[in-house]
């Protein structure tokens, strides 16, 4: 995506976030709200400036705003690394709630390795077990961090 188009979208997203933050800040007493309110108003102004700059670049013909001509197919989105990673992370953390840190970590490492191209089953299993054990040893044994336990085990 062209840089100016990205600026427009980013400016719009910033404007919406700032508006929401400003609206929320009106629920707080004045003394507690003055700092976030001032910042959100400043953000509204900055997002408008960024939007205007992007729009000027577009209207001067520096970029063509053709809209989304090529909508990616759903299976292309599914192959997008960001989509894969965020979904994997969400499932990993949800998994910790049910099966605990160690099991969830092992499943996460093994599955992600497989998705990213590691096809040798022995390598996947061996490396998964090794890294899970290493993380357990370093954080739980060495550093004394209490690892999260799941509802089931």
């Amino acid at each position, binding site marked *: 995506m062209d*840089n100016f188009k*990205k*600026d427009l*979208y*980013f400016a719009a*997203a*910033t404007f919406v*976030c700032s508006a929401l*933050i400003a609206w*929320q*800040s009106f629920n*707080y*007493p004045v*003394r*507690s*709200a003055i*700092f*976030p309110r001032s*910042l*959100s108003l*400043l*953000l509204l102004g*900055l*997002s408008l*400036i*960024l939007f205007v*700059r992007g729009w000027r670049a577009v209207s001067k013909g520096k970029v063509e705003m053709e809209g989304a001509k090529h909508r990616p197919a759903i299976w292309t989105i599914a192959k997008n*690394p*960001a989509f*894969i*990673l*965020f979904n*994997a*992370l*969400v499932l*990993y*953390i949800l998994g*910790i*709630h049910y099966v605990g*840190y160690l099991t969830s*970590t092992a499943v*996460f*490492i093994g599955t*992600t*390795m497989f998705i*990213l*191209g*590691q096809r040798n089953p022995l390598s996947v299993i061996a*490396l998964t077990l090794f*890294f899970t054990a290493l*993380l357990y040893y370093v*954080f739980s044994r060495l*550093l*004394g*961090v*209490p*690892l*999260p336990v799941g509802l089931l085990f």
Partner: protein
Amino acid sequence: MKGGDLILSNIVTGAAILLKPELYIVLFFGVWAGVFIGVLPGLSSTMGVALLIPVTFGMEPSMGLAMLGAIYVASTYAGAISAILINIPGTSASIATLLDGPALVRKGEATRAVAVATFVSAIGGILSAFALLFLAPPLAMFSLRFGASEYFLLALFGITIIASLSEESIEKGLIAGCFGLLLAVVGMHPLTGYFRFSFGEPYLYEGIPVIVAMIGLYSIPEVIDLMTDKKHRGNIGDMRYESGNPFRHFKDLIKHRWLVLRSSIIGIIIGIIPGAGCSIGGFVSYDFAKKSSKHPERFGKGAIEGIIASETANNAVTGGSLVPLLTLGIPGNAVTAVFLGGLMIHGLRPGIALFEKNSVITYGFIISLFLSNLLFVPVGFITAKYGIKIIKAPVSLLAPLIMSLAVIGSYSIRSSVVDVWLMIGLGFIGFIMHRCSVPRAPMVLGLVLGSMAEAELARAMALVHGSAPALLLRFLSRPISLILVCLVIFSIGQAIYRQIRKSKEQLY
């Protein structure tokens, strides 16, 4: 005995620690532990010192303190290794190193970047240990002169650096900085105690930890980049760490010796101010280096001066932060706050008495800091050399490993899964920012400075009963405040001047 003679006499007595073989064992362990903690994103210096304090229970006080000091200085330095090699800062002290470290690696100068960072960190740490040794009492008096006005202006000065960090687009940099300041607002108001933007979640009452934000903003976009660019490997594929002698890059220090000295002084001064940490020292020094450089346009694109400035200063903060702790019992930052606990466990009370009644232990500890700053040099080189071998592993291995580390690292801050969700959420924001070419460093700087800026402004206003003219008069009538006001005006003026010049160049 005169003051100077007394100090020298105490130093000689304290130097007896060098004759104890167990010192070298504890320093060896402390430096390796510190480098290990500093290199891994998610583990902070504070955590390292806190977790290893119990190990010092059975030790002599001087040995226990020496080990904790070694962990502190080594972990502060080692964050630079991961910041340079994988674009993920190991600790918050190395955030400013991200601005030029990875760019140098892309130019094929990984060895030079790591070598220079290692040398200047050692020099910054050693010079700050000198300051601690000879200048602790007068520096402590200076730190006492910082009140609410001075703290607010220091935070404001730090915020003006945000503009200079984002020369590509000042609006984007300021937007990122404002979002960072807003992240710092989450949680309890420092004076009224009112909870804001916590939405009833108890773990948000204390705000968002800087480490969690840092891990999310940097590790997730970096892993996505790795996954996207599997063939070329981007930053990592171009990395070379030659087996040759890294000491040949010492000449960079000779060439920029005055920058090293100035950055050390900045780091020491920032360090003695309670509440200002290593990350602020790194950014302020970076900003000074950029503004005083003949080629400021090189900064952010692989300028070795950027690494020299940030790494010298952040390690110089270590000695500086120990000044108010040892002399006044006031921690300089989060790490020294934990150190205070370590001192008390060993039956030592901070204050001027520490330098008189417990002079052998105190001066022995300070002398051990010199050794620690030297010892992490070879340890850092070994870690970097073998670290690169691990990092050149296939993406299918590296990506899940980095993310597992990010998850457990975020969790371990407060043993809370909420922090892991925060890390993922901030990772998403970092991914969007990275895609839209919005710099992330201003956001982290805003988060670091936000709570200090709001709290100190509220306190300063309370001191003048809410009168803005009285506040302004206060800023202009106190010497340190006046200097800071001049720095703020100069910083803003320079940013505006650069922006106007850039707009004119674009027109023509």
